[in-house]
């Protein structure tokens, strides 16, 4: 029996889709059977982030309306064994799917897959309600900014109100240099405010943009620090105890040299 994990944040643009793509690919690389569901109807993006946009025939709305069989709508990723995508509809609106339909769909997929990752749209309206309907657990993505943390707090409250207990936090786009000089909230600050468990910290890494340009998740890139962070999160989701990585490695050579010679970090 598989497990349904919803990736949510409240605020848009904090990295839900990138997180879904990377964790999903990471789980497939660990030999798991994975399906990614894009529930952002009308604004689908998981397909382009995954590089599967040219292979869409049917979508989520076709499945729930019975216009096709579930198997027909699942896009098999040929690069990674066991990885599948169920894309969102682009020309419909969020009301085309109901929470009950999502529950039924998730139950069906649980029979076949180890992990079902649901990429949630921004906001707290119908799309959010659909995305969390069938979820067993939740990952909340935030960045170290007041707006993102505030929205994460709201989402955590809503998840608990919907009886999705113990959501885990991913802090995305952390810049260690800024944290060090006191211009960015640290992980401890954010945990202190949100009071939930942490499952991973992803450093701000330009490789994410490069990999998204190519449609290849950064988790497959051994040189990417964000990729390493996603590999760690993947293993934690599978129940392994992986220590948090040292974000210092993210620091540039110049900054290291300056520090060595006693200059203040730029």
């Amino acid at each position: 029996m598989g497990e349904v994990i919803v990736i949510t944040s409240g605020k848009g643009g904090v990295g839900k889709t990138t997180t879904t793509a990377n964790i999903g690919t990471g789980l497939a690389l660990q030999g798991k059977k994975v399906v990614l569901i894009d529930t952002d109807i009308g604004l689908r993006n998981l397909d382009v982030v995954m590089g599967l946009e040219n292979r869409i025939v049917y979508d989520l709305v076709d499945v729930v309306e019975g216009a096709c069989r579930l198997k027909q709508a699942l896009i098999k990723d040929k690069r990674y064994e066991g990885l599948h995508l169920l894309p969102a509809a682009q020309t419909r609106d969020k009301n085309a799917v109901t929470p009950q339909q999502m529950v039924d769909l998730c139950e069906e997929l649980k029979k076949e897959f180890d992990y079902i990752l649901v990429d949630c749209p921004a906001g707290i309206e119908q799309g959010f309600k659909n995305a969390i309907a069938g979820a067993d657990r939740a990952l909340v993505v935030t960045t170290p900014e007041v707006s993102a943390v505030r929205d994460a707090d709201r989402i955590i409250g809503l998840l608990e109100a919907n009886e999705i207990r113990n959501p885990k936090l991913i802090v995305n786009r952390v810049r260690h240099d800024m944290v060090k000089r006191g211009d960015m909230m640290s992980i401890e600050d954010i945990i202190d405010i949100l009071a939930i468990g942490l499952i991973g910290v992803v450093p701000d890494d330009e490789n994410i943009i490069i990999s998204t340009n190519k449609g290849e998740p950064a988790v497959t890139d051994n040189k990417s620090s964000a990729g390493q962070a996603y590999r760690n999160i993947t293993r934690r989701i599978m129940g392994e105890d992986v220590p948090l990585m040292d974000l210092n490695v993210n620091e540039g050579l110049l900054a290291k040299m300056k520090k060595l010679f006693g200059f203040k970090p730029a």
Partner: protein
Amino acid sequence: MIDLIKLLTRKKETSKDVAKERLKLVLIHDRSNVSPQFLEMVKSEIIKVIQNYMEIDERELDIQLTKTNSDDGERIVPALVANIPIKGMKSAGR
């Protein structure tokens, strides 16, 4: 002496401290889910209690959830501010 050390070692407030402080405050508001109905309930309860002792002008009564400086002046804390015009004392209160 300890105060002196504190004074000397105290760093300038960084922007992340400002961010954290602001967030904490805004979340108190968000989490309490203060709706107009909630304030209306608080208001009617307060009126009930005060009317046992004083005559007040109910129409001019104003209750707000707001922010104020803490006693030590270092932080901003949430506060319930009530402006209740008193028309007269009731004999029972004397």
